[in-house]
């Protein structure tokens, strides 16, 4: 009996800490007042609607979308072949390479951002957009390699040999036999990469320049000037977007198998 109550308490607390902030944000955005407060002063949808009229939000949303989609695609274009090479060929230091590729997950974003800025973007004079694109690709790459490696390891390599004996080239065997069997993993990597890139703050903070900002950075700077509930409303909308993406992915892919 006692265990039951303890475990219920722990589950209750966990849920409160996980979902509580989310609820607070949703409610704060519903406020009818001029400032972000909790509990909200009255109820209205005006801040949720205002979000869509702020020009800088629209521009930064577009940039964040661009980075999340194309940065992740670029990461997959690099990551899938890399994962394949590591799992199928006897690459010297394969495991080490895997660890190094995973570094951006381990190293704090601030350090990655500063390093990229100081030693890549400034000396080579990259544009802000290019710098952001490269950084997001690099940040998503480890997820791509990890998730795709996991599904490759579940795939027996003898079916590629079978394909070769039926007339395929090694590359043909990869596209005809390997890819169709790891597409769930690739899609999972895409979603994970997308969400990671979209929510990325520290690295983007260093690389964003005048007029070119990702959405989270834009929200930060908006808050520095205006403390109205629209940021809360926008946060809530973004959270809903993530939840929907993950929910759909789980429903159709069994997303949780891969992460």
């Amino acid at each position, binding site marked *: 009996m006692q265990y039951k109550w303890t475990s219920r308490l722990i589950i209750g607390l966990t849920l409160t800490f996980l979902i509580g902030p989310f609820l607070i944000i949703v409610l704060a955005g519903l406020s009818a007042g001029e400032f972000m407060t909790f509990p909200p002063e009255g109820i209205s949808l005006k801040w949720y609607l205002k979000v869509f009229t702020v020009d800088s939000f629209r521009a930064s949303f577009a940039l964040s979308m661009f980075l999340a989609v194309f940065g992740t695609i670029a990461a997959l274009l690099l990551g899938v072949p890399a994962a394949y090479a590591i799992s199928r060929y006897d690459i010297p230091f394969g495991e080490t390479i895997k660890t190094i590729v995973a570094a951006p997950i381990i190293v704090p974003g601030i350090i990655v951002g500063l390093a990229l800025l100081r030693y890549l973007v400034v000396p080579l004079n990259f544009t802000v957009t290019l710098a952001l694109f490269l950084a997001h690709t690099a940040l998503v790459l480890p997820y791509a390699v990890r998730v795709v490696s996991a599904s490759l390891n579940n795939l*027996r390599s*003898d*079916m590629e*040999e*079978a*394909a*070769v*004996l*039926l*007339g*395929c*080239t090694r590359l*043909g065997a990869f596209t*005809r*036999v390997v890819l*169709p*069997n790891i597409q769930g993993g690739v899609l999972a990597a895409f979603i994970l990469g997308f969400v990671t890139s979209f929510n990325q703050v520290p690295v983007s903070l260093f690389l964003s320049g005048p007029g070119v900002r990702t959405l989270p950075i834009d929200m930060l700077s908006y808050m520095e000037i205006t403390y109205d509930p629209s940021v809360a409303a926008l946060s809530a909308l973004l959270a809903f977007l993530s939840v929907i993406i993950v929910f759909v992915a789980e429903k159709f892919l069994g997303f949780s198998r891969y992460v």
Partner: protein
Amino acid sequence: MSDAYVSLQNLSLAYGSSIVVPELNIDIRKGELIALLGPSGCGKTTTMRAIAGLMTPHSGKITIDGVDVTRMPANKRGIGLVFQSYALFPHLTAFENAAFGLRLQKRPAAEIEERVTHWLATVDLAHLADRKPAEMSGGQQQRLSLARSLVMEPKVLLLDEPLSNLDARLRLEMRTELQRVQRDTGITMVFVTHDQAEALALADRIVLMKDGVIEQLGTPDELYNAPRTVFGADFFGFENIFEVAGRDLIGAKGKMPVAFGATARHMAWRPGAVSVGSGPWEGVVTGVAFAGEKREYVLDTDLGQIKAATDASEPAYQIGDVVPFGLPEATGFPISG
């Protein structure tokens, strides 16, 4: 040498620095059905992979139809391989698995349809054409793997334990089917098995391997009736093998004098060749098993354990009985190796 279709010459195979097959020489004639027989780990799969081109030989040469294919890529050799692990494509239906190679060759749809349907029916899978491999039993997967290779009508077909997962009835059926296909198509086949009965029933010639070395190569008749080594004799059912020294037989437990002189280094008797109920020696029955037409005994003797068998119609002995027995020279087989 001249009539060899597939020829392995001084073939040496290794994984990294560990040599699995030191030196292999086999000549296979066109249209021949060869069985590669040997205990687990003796290098059967490795040899098949080398012939197929999935592994580069450490040294030596492989020729097919007079062409040196040692360095030829696997997808150019025109060799089929039925994998021990089936290696089916999980994302494709049975039909598409079987059609895979033909689709690569961009054959006309009608021809693909016809050939695939034909071979799926041959392996008794026509009714499962729309199933994915995961929805098929082990035996069905194995037959699909066979069909996928046969559809290609390869010059040489390698089969790595193609019947191991089938029940006794299906196994016999597929065995007959395989033999029929081989006679009809004239495909040169090499199949791996560690079932001696299967090798004897199917093969034109048997290659008996041990630790990557050929122990004996010959017709089923030769391997069954005239084994050249102790290993070969043991493999083909000579359960009682003793060293001969002068006029003594030497067993695991001790020696016994015999009435005949040594003609070879070893003498071997199948269980049925041991005379039970009469003979110069005595043994204690420690095991009895009824096997239909035969009754099998394990006898504890001064030589060690002896396995004997009598017709079920003869009088039966019980465990603990002391029975006279003999190892007649006439029913024994001398082994020189």
